[in-house]
């Protein structure tokens, strides 16, 4: 009687299929903290890291973003408004709004509502936009830490 020959070619395919079937849970499950931390981090620079008990990193991020924002205001930088109309104004607004509560505070207090046409004011505008963009990166970092992708 002939013995049944095992089909060795099918083995890896079956193993891969089995792995796909059993792997129902994602590697990094989305938790409440993974949603809350970036939102807090956006509102308060470094706040997401503080929430995740990364106090040193949170403090450095807070100092960096707030200092850049305040220096930008001190240099008579302009704060963009949402109804700019021009595409560059909209992009400027997207950058500025990254500063979260700082942006909201600046709008409430009417800070940065200047149209100064000098080099320092231009640098100030750049400082304000980059502060917001850096804060977006910091908020994304808080999200990755909360997911467990980063220690």
């Amino acid at each position, binding site marked *: 009687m002939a013995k049944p020959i095992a089909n060795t070619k099918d083995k890896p395919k079956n193993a891969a299929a089995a792995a796909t079937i059993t792997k129902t849970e994602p590697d990094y499950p989305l938790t409440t903290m993974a949603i809350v931390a970036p939102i807090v981090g956006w509102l308060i620079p470094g706040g997401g890291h503080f929430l995740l008990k990364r106090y040193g990193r949170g403090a450095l991020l807070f100092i*960096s*973003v707030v200092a*850049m924002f305040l*220096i930008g205001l001190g240099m008579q930088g302009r704060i963009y408004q949402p109804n700019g109309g021009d595409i560059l104004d909209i992009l400027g607004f997207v950058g500025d709004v990254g500063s979260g509560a700082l942006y909201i505070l600046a709008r409430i207090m009417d800070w940065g509502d200047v149209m100064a046409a000098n080099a320092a004011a231009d*640098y*100030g505008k750049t400082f304000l936009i980059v502060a917001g963009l850096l804060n977006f*990166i910091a908020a994304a970092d808080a999200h990755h830490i909360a997911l467990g992708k980063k220690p």
Partner: protein
Amino acid sequence: MTLALSHFSAAVVFALFASVVFGITQRNSTLEQVKYGLYCFALFVGGVFVAGWVMALIRR
């Protein structure tokens, strides 16, 4: 209050804070973060010098 920073000092302050954020967010361990932050700072400031010299040579 108006802050009067020269072009160079504004660029160095910008480089400092941007490098801190890049270092913290783009690397995992503390040592790697410090190294990457210093690397970014050196590139920022080095870029300022290179751009300055390029502009000076163009102007001549």
